[in-house]
């Protein structure tokens, strides 16, 4: 049965530590680290044990897999969800669309004007014009006359 996190550290636990986690104290469990370092400082025989573990650590460290390629990074990032804002290109396209809509609107409006379609009745236009004038010169707005029959 292994003894975990025993204080004070002894030869058995120190051997277990180095055999499992290697010789670098940073890899030792946090609860064992300080007692193990104290044991190491006080026990010359423990140094050989640690040195052997460090040598294996060093050899294992020689296996360094290839770094991720730019192509892989690009493929992965391309799959990420992005909430699209308006880019300059989108704004340009929107502007062109808006301009086209205005031109079409003017052309349709001009067409209606030429055929007399959609013209407001004369008295409505007159009333609106009079109201605007009244607002400008301070006179009360004109009220359309009611037909006699309605009173």
């Amino acid at each position, binding site marked *: 049965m292994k003894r975990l996190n025993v204080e004070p550290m002894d030869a058995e636990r120190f051997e277990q530590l180095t055999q*499992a986690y*290697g010789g670098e104290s940073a890899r030792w469990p946090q609860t064992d680290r300080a007692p193990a370092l104290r044991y190491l400082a006080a026990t010359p025989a423990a140094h050989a044990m640690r040195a052997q573990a460090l040598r*294996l650590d060093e050899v*294992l460290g020689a*296996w360094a897999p290839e770094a991720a390629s730019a192509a892989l990074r690009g493929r992965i*990032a391309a799959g990420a*969800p992005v909430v699209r804002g308006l880019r300059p290109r989108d704004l340009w396209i929107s502007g062109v669309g808006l301009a086209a809509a205005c031109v079409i609107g003017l052309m349709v409006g001009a067409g209606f004007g030429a055929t007399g379609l959609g013209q407001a009745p004369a008295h409505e236009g007159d009333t609106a014009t009079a109201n605007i004038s009244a607002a400008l010169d301070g006179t009360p707005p004109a009220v359309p006359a009611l037909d006699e029959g309605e009173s």
Partner: protein
Amino acid sequence: MSQGRADPDEELVARIARGEPGAANKFVALKLGRILALARRMLTDAVEAEDVAQEVFLRVWRHAPAWRPGAARFDTWMHRVTLNLCYDRLRRRREIPQAEPPEMPDTGPAPDRGLLAADVGRAVEAAMAKLPHRQREAIVLCHYQELGNIEAAELMGISVEALESLLSRARRSLRATLAPMAQGL
């Protein structure tokens, strides 16, 4: 282990969930190397490792909006997903007989040439490939991914004592395999 500690990835994951420009690229720059190395060392196959890494990040993009901090760290969750995907592939390898065993370098001594770090690296890879999967997983998590013993044990679903046993057996086996080419083991 992770419970009760602030998750260093929390803010970035939230930004990914909101679809903020640049957040995904930053996350890839931060995590890809680590996840790719984990898959690469578990599978000892570069192409398969890239496939696994892509799948892990697809899941990150998919799950980020639903991620609720507190249960486990996001990095731990990514490790779990990566390990699961690796084990799926390792199982498939067992089920589908391989036409030819993967070519592994000769790990014997090479007295007539100087040993370069790359040679040692290839020998370590070959020695790791020979380890039983659970021993390899223990070494990869504790030595290469530098996880703490409690976090590694939880990821593997075993006790710390069982983890130490796997680590000791793995290191003993690696030492025996690599001793002919590395002095002082």
